[in-house]
């Protein structure tokens, strides 16, 4: 008996401990839309990663299942709220989003290309900035505060109709300078803990960070419904949380720094499917 126990113990000890590894699973939304959660890394990442993986693969079984059905996905409640604002007339021009764009489904593919260079504005714009440009310049309405209620709901709605399409942001041409700025930020150590984004999300994904699984920090699933705060969270708010956790002074959602970082981090997921609104912890 003692011998047997010894053999079992030895097996246990030699089995690699791999609790935080990404799982081998396939995400199919509503039994019809297959989501690419794992694909070859884009060219610009070839020196550092072979494969890029959605954060979905780093979450538990229940959380993964919740995202597979729109009824179970609480993020879709906020998408429904955004549909109401899509059709609601607002501002001095008497227009709604639908007045120019018709149905929300005509916006399929839009989320996949943002953030992108805006010729008229002469800078890189995020999707929320583009929505606000429509509101202030064409509807005569007030801009929505960044990453808050209406703005994040609308981003989720625009994302929901692009789910399954590959993320494809341009990093060359006029956007290159902003992209380089974002890349610098990604690899620069900040805060009292002197951590860069790469220290966790490139060097240590698949390992534990205290009780949690470290993912690659991909943002193809944003906006994200987080179980911990039961609402939609924007990528800028998430960046802010991460930077705060390095014990650094952080930037504001919507700031030029976060726009650059969003462009760079999004480009790290070029090829993964748009997933938002996704579910994370």
């Amino acid at each position: 008996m003692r011998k047997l126990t010894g053999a079992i113990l030895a097996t246990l000890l030699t089995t690699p401990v791999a609790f935080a590894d990404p799982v081998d699973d396939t995400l199919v939304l509503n039994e019809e839309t297959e989501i690419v959660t794992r694909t070859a890394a884009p060219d610009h990442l070839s020196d550092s990663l072979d494969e890029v993986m959605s954060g979905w693969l780093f979450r538990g079984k229940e959380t993964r299942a919740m995202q597979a059905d729109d009824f179970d996905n609480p993020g879709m409640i906020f998408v429904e709220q955004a549909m109401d604002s899509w059709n609601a007339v607002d501002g001095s021009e008497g227009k709604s989003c639908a007045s120019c764009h018709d149905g929300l489904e005509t916006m399929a593919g839009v989320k996949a290309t943002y953030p992108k260079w805006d010729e008229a504005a002469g800078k890189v714009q995020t999707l929320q900035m583009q929505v606000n440009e429509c509101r202030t310049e064409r509807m005569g309405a007030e801009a929505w505060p960044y990453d808050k209620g209406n703005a994040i709901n609308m981003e989720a709605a625009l994302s929901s109709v692009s789910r399954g399409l590959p993320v494809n942001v341009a990093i060359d041409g006029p956007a290159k300078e902003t992209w380089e700025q974002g890349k610098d930020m990604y690899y620069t150590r900040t805060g009292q803990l002197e951590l860069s984004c790469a220290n966790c999300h490139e060097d240590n994904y698949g390992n534990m960070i205290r009780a949690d699984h470290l993912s690659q920090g991909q943002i193809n699933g944003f906006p994200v419904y987080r179980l911990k705060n039961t609402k939609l969270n924007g990528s800028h708010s998430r960046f802010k949380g991460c930077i705060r956790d390095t014990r650094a002074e952080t930037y504001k959602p919507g700031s030029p720094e976060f726009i650059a970082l969003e462009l760079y981090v999004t480009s790290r997921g070029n090829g993964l499917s748009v997933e938002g609104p996704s579910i994370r912890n």
Partner: protein
Amino acid sequence: MASGVKPRVKVPKSAAAGEAITIKTLISHKMESGQRKDSDGNIIPRSIINRFTCDFNGENVVDVELAPAISTNPYFEFEALVPEAGEFKFTWYDDDGSVYETSKKIAIG
């Protein structure tokens, strides 16, 4: 009335007679527990859905009492036997006296 309350249900359009079907329901509701305080230290009054019922052709299927510790946007999934064609009626009761109702028809075949 609590704001942003919207019931959602998912029921198959048809079932075989005597089949057990899965029903999913979710109501968006903030489910304020009554335990929290605002920034001035005042208690935020309790505001929850306190009861949920489902009836089929007038016969009760489930009747649930909800407590303050239940999280926001309460979700229920349960099975029901469908002996005949008819209508499921879902009702949520709010602390403030509001009653939210929705219904779904199901056919046999």
